[in-house]
C-alpha cells in the first residue's frame, strides 16, 4: 500500500481506499456477492417448487388456471420497462445528465409502484376467493353466510343419522342387525385435514353466477392438495414483492440524492449498484412468471 498521507483524497473516497477505482471495484464485487446470496435465498424456494411440481404435477396443472395471465403478463412488461429506465438512469449518471438521471429513477420507481399495484389487485382477488396457502385454503369462501349454514346443516344431518342408526339399528330380512361402523371412512391422505373439506362443491347455477362475476372456471377435476400451489405461489411472489419494495426504497433514496446533486461522472457507484439490484429483482420475476402462470 504505497500510500502517501499528503495526497489529497477526492471527497467521496473513503479513507481506507487508495484510489476511487479501488473503491468502485470493491463496491461492485460486494454487490455481486450480495446478489449471489439473494439468488441462493430464492434458490431454496425454486428447489421446493421443483420437488413439489415433480411430486404433484396435476396440482400445478390444475391450480395455475386460477392465476391471471393478463395481469402477470402486464407486470412482466412493467418490470422489464423499469429495468430499461434504470439502465438509462445509470447511463445518465455516468454522463452527468442530471435531468435524465432524475427522470430515469422516477420512472423506475413508478414502474415498481405499478407492479406492486397490480400485485395488490391479484392478491386481493385470491384472498377474496379463498385461494390461500395451506390450512387457509378455502375456495368458495367468498360466500361465508351460505357456507357456514351449509357446513352446519351437514354436521346436523350427520349427527342425526348417527343418532337414528344407534336408536334403531337396521336389520336384514332375517332380523340380524347390519353391522355398520360408526367411524367415518378415513379421508384419503391429506384431504381429511383440509379446512372446509367437502363443502366446496358448487351447484351449477352458482358456478354460472361465478363466471358472470368474472371468476375463473378451471377445467378438469380438482385434484388433492391444491393448497400446495398457492402456498408456493404466495411464498415466491411474496418474497419477490418484498424485494421489489426494498428496491423501491433504494431507488427512492437514489432519487433523493440525485435531486440533491450528489452524483457526477467520477462518483456514480451507488446508482450503478442500485441498478444491479433492481435488475436482479426483475430477473427473478422473469423466472417466476412462466413457472407459476404459464404451466401446461
Amino acid at each position, binding site marked *: 500500500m504505497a500510500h502517501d498521507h499528503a495526497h489529497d483524497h477526492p471527497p467521496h473516497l473513503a479513507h481506507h481506499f487508495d484510489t476511487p477505482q479501488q473503491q468502485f471495484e470493491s463496491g461492485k464485487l460486494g454487490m455481486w456477492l450480495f446478489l449471489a446470496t*439473494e439468488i441462493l435465498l430464492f434458490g*431454496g424456494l425454486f428447489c421446493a417448487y421443483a420437488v413439489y411440481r415433480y411430486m404433484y404435477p396435476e396440482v400445478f396443472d390444475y391450480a395455475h388456471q386460477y392465476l391471471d395471465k393478463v395481469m402477470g403478463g402486464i407486470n412482466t412488461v412493467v418490470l422489464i420497462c423499469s429495468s430499461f429506465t434504470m439502465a438509462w438512469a445509470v447511463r445518465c449518471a455516468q454522463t452527468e445528465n442530471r435531468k435524465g438521471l432524475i427522470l430515469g429513477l422516477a420512472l423506475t420507481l413508478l414502474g415498481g409502484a405499478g407492479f406492486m399495484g397490480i400485485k395488490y389487485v391479484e392478491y386481493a382477488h385470491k384472498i377474496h376467493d379463498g385461494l390461500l396457502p395451506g390450512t387457509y385454503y378455502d375456495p368458495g369462501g367468498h360466500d361465508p353466510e351460505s357456507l357456514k349454514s351449509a357446513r352446519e346443516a351437514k354436521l346436523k344431518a350427520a349427527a342425526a343419522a348417527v343418532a337414528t342408526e344407534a336408536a334403531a339399528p337396521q336389520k336384514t330380512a332375517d332380523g340380524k342387525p347390519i353391522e355398520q361402523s360408526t367411524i367415518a371412512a378415513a379421508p384419503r391422505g391429506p384431504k381429511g385435514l383440509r379446512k372446509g373439506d367437502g363443502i366446496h362443491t358448487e351447484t351449477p347455477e352458482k358456478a354460472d353466477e361465478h363466471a358472470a362475476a368474472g371468476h375463473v372456471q378451471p377445467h378438469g377435476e380438482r385434484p388433492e392438495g391444491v393448497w400446495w400451489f398457492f*402456498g408456493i405461489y404466495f411464498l415466491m411472489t411474496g418474497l419477490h414483492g418484498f424485494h421489489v419494495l426494498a428496491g423501491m426504497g433504494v431507488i427512492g433514496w437514489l432519487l433523493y440524492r440525485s435531486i440533491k446533486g450528489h452524483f457526477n461522472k467520477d462518483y456514480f457507484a451507488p446508482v450503478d449498484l442500485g441498478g444491479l439490484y433492481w435488475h436482479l429483482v426483475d430477473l427473478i420475476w422473469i423466472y417466476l412468471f412462466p413457472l407459476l402462470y404459464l404451466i401446461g
Partner: protein
Amino acid sequence: MADATMTNPSAASTPPAGEMNYLTCARGWKSWFLTLDHKRIGIMYLIATMSSFGLAGLFALLVRTELLTPKDTIVDADMYNQFFTLHGAIMVFLFIIPSIPAALGNFVLPIMLGAKDVAFPKLNLFSFYLWMFGGIFAVVTLATGGLDTGWTFYTPYSIETQTAVIAMTTGAFILGFSSIFTGLNFIVTIHKLRPPGMTWFKMPLFLWAIYATAILQVIATPVLGITLLLLIAERALGVGIFAASMGGDPVMFQHFFWFYSHPAVYIMILPALGIVSELIACYSHKPIFGYRFIAWSSIAIALFSFIVWGHHMFTSGQSELVNMVFSALTFSVSIPSAIKVFNWLATMYKGAITLQTPMLYGLGFIFLFTIGGLTGLPLAMLSVDVHLHDTYFVVAHFHYVMMGSTVIAMVGGMHHWWPKMFGKMYNETAARIAFVLVFIGFNVTFFTQFIIGSQGMPRRYYDYEPQFQLGHQISTMGSYVMGLGFLLMLGYLLHSLVRGKKAPANPWGGSTLEWVASSPPSHHNFDEAPQVDDPYDFTGIDYKPDTDEYVFNRPRAAKA
C-alpha cells in the same frame, strides 16, 4: 523518522509513551458504539461472543449437573430440554460461528493484510448491530417463551411444539444475515485491499482460512435463511411443505437445514485451522511446512463441505444409493484435514519450539482435533453409524471438533493476539495452569462420552439406565474442572488489563505483519506502509532478553 522506519520497522513499533493508539485515540461511549474502526468492532464482538460463551457454558454445566443421577436431579424433563436447547443454540449461533471470524478476524485480518480497514466499515458496524439485535432477540425468546426443539428445529416437531419457534427462527435468520455481511466484507477486503506486494501466496494462512470461511458464510447461509422462512410460513400459514400430515416432506427440511448447517460446521472449524497454522509456525520459530498445501486444503475443505450434508441423515430414510454416495464423499473430507495435521507436525520437526500458552493451545488442538476427526470416520461408515447414530458417541465426536478444536484454537488465538489487542501481557503461569485444567477437564468430560455412547447411551435423554451413571458422573466432574479453568482464565485476563505488564510490539517472535504494528496498533494500523515479505520468514527476528521482546533485524526488501 520516516527513513528509520523503512530500514527498521521495530523503531516505529515502539512508540514513545503516551502516543495515541486505537484504544486511546477517541473517548466516550459514542466513539465505541458508532465506531467504524475494525479493531474496535472486533473488540466489541470479542466481549459479546465471550459473554455468550459464558452463558451457554453455564447451561452446559446445568445439563451436566442434571445428568448426575437418572431422573430428577435439579430440574424436571421439560426444563432439561430447554437447558440443552439453550446451550446448543447459544453456543452455535452466538458463539462458535461469529467468535473467530467476527471477533479475532475483524481485529487481525486488515492488519495482517497491511490494509487500513475492511472494505466496508459501515457494513461491518451494521453486521455487528444485526448480530446484537438477533442475539438479544434469540436469548429473550429462549428465556421467556422457551424452546425445546434443539438447535436444529427438526420438523415435524418444530411445527407442533407450543414453544416459541417463530421468534427463535426469526432471531437465527437475523444472525444469519449478520454472518453473510461479515463474510462478504472479508471476501472483498481480501480481493481488493491487498497492498502492493501482498500476493495471494504471501498471505498468512489465517487469511486463507478466513477467506474459505467467508465463502461458506456467503454461499451457505442464505439457504438457512430461506429454510427458516419456510418454517415460519409453515407455522404461521400451514403451507404444508414440511408437514407430512399435509403431504409434505419433513426430510426435505433436513436436507435444507443441513445444506447450510454442514458447511456451517466448517464455518466453525476452518478459521480455527487457520489460527493453529499461525500458532505452530510462530512458536516453532520456523517457516511453515507445505504452505500451499495448507492454503489449498482450506479451500478444498470449504468445497467438500457442500457435498456431504447427507451424512446427517443416514437414518432419516434416504435411499441406500444416496447414503453410500454421501458416506464416500464424507470420507474425502479427511484428506485435506489430514494434510493440515501432517504439515503442522512437519513444521514443528526441528523447530525451536517455545511452550508459551498459545503454543500449548496449538498442541492441545492437534491432539483433540485428531481424536475428533478420527472418530468422525466410524460415523461416516454406514453400518457403524446405524448403531452410533443419536448416541453420546456423536455428542463426544462433535464436542471434540467444536469445543476441543474450535474453542481451544479460539482461546489460543485470543492469548496469541491479546498483547496486540490490549497492549498488556497476562500472567503466563496462571495461563498455563488454566490450560491444563481446561485440557484435562475437557478430555475427562468427553472421552467418557465416547465410552457410554458406544455402549448405547442415547443423546438428549433426560433419564438413563443405571449402568451409565458412573460414566455420566465422571463426565460431569470433568465439566466442573473445565469450568474452573475458564473461570481462572477470565480472572487473569481481566487482571492483565489493569495490572498487566506493558506488551512490546512483538512479544512472541511472530513474522506476520501484525507484529510489525505497535501494541496496540495505531488508529490507522500502520504509521508507515509496511513492507510485505514472506509471511513465515523467521530469519532476522532476534530476541532481546533485556526487554523480553523480539525485534526485526533483517535487511528489508526495497519498498514495493
